[in-house]
């Protein structure tokens, strides 16, 4: 952890600040859109910035971005009650992404990492909701939420793949001063 912290420089901090702000704005805008097929289901477009950060910067920076985006996003949108479901789901999904990137990337594509992360995110969120609210009937939504996760994972993964592919190298080189 501290090894990663030492690598922080002015450019990197500014870069991460911009990415966090973009993730936050996307989160807030997406909150204004109607739900996707099921109540509360979203595309999770702000995860584009989380996955991008993980691949370009590293696991520590990605975890920090997800935490700040979720906490501030829930505060900004006034949906504080959703924080207790969104935060564990975001962190678990990011942990799975980190594991896949460390162990299997680039043998597997960015899109497949995104699909797995999105499915895990939705399953975790619903499981936490069922436990916290005590509404066992909500467990029946689990398979549908997994399907929505596949769809959102493909969209997020494709967006990240395009950004990585077509963004100039100077934009992705985060270690230079």
């Amino acid at each position, binding site marked *: 952890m501290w090894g990663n912290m030492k690598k922080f420089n002015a450019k990197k901090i500014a870069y991460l600040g911009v990415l966090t702000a973009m993730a936050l704005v996307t989160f807030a805008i997406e*909150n*204004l859109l*109607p*739900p996707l097929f*099921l*109540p*509360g289901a979203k595309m999770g477009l702000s995860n584009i910035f989380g996955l991008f950060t993980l*691949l*370009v910067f590293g696991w520590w920076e990605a975890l920090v971005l997800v935490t700040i985006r979720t906490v501030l996003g829930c505060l900004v949108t006034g*949906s504080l*009650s*959703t924080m207790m479901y969104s935060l564990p789901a975001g962190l678990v999904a990011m942990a799975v992404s980190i594991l896949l990137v460390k162990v*299997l*990337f*680039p*043998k*597997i*594509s*960015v*899109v*497949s990492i995104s*699909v*797995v992360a999105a*499915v895990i995110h939705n399953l975790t969120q619903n499981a936490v909701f069922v436990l916290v*609210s*005590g*509404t066992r*009937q*909500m*467990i*029946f939504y*689990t*398979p549908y939420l*997994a*399907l929505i996760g*596949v769809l959102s994972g493909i969209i997020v993964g*494709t967006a990240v*793949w395009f950004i*990585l*592919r077509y963004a100039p*190298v100077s934009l*992705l*080189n985060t270690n230079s001063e």
Partner: protein
Amino acid sequence: MTKIDNIKNTKFFAKADIVVYAFVLSLIVLLFGIFVWGEKTESLTAISASVTENGKAVEIFTYEFENDKITVASGWEERITVTETADTLEIKFVFDDEFNLLTISKNDRTAIMTEANCSFHHDCTKFPPITDGSGIIICIPHGLTVFGVGVTDYQPNVG
């Protein structure tokens, strides 16, 4: 190859993705098998509503289809108003300045949240109608849960 080259040249689809997608597909089929296809649906005998008070779910309303009987918990008479027509019941749950309007169809044995002013999207009105014992509608901002009661769970305890 540097890290940047590595991520820039990553393929949109890699051969090993087949294994990942097969795993995800198997997981989804398994979940459908457990929670959708394998679930025995029970016909609806009643519609109940509960709110969370001091961390506990308290039943505040029940409608029994068989006896056409409405029960409202004591202390909630002022906040739950029922409008009845030949086939439908409209139940308005009032929470300070806000409300949820639940419509129960007696003949079809269904219940749906038709109106609410709880949140920006009124998520509770987007829930599918309750048609069997496993159906549920949740309004998170109001802490209101409306659920179907199946044959085995049927034991009125509102009052």
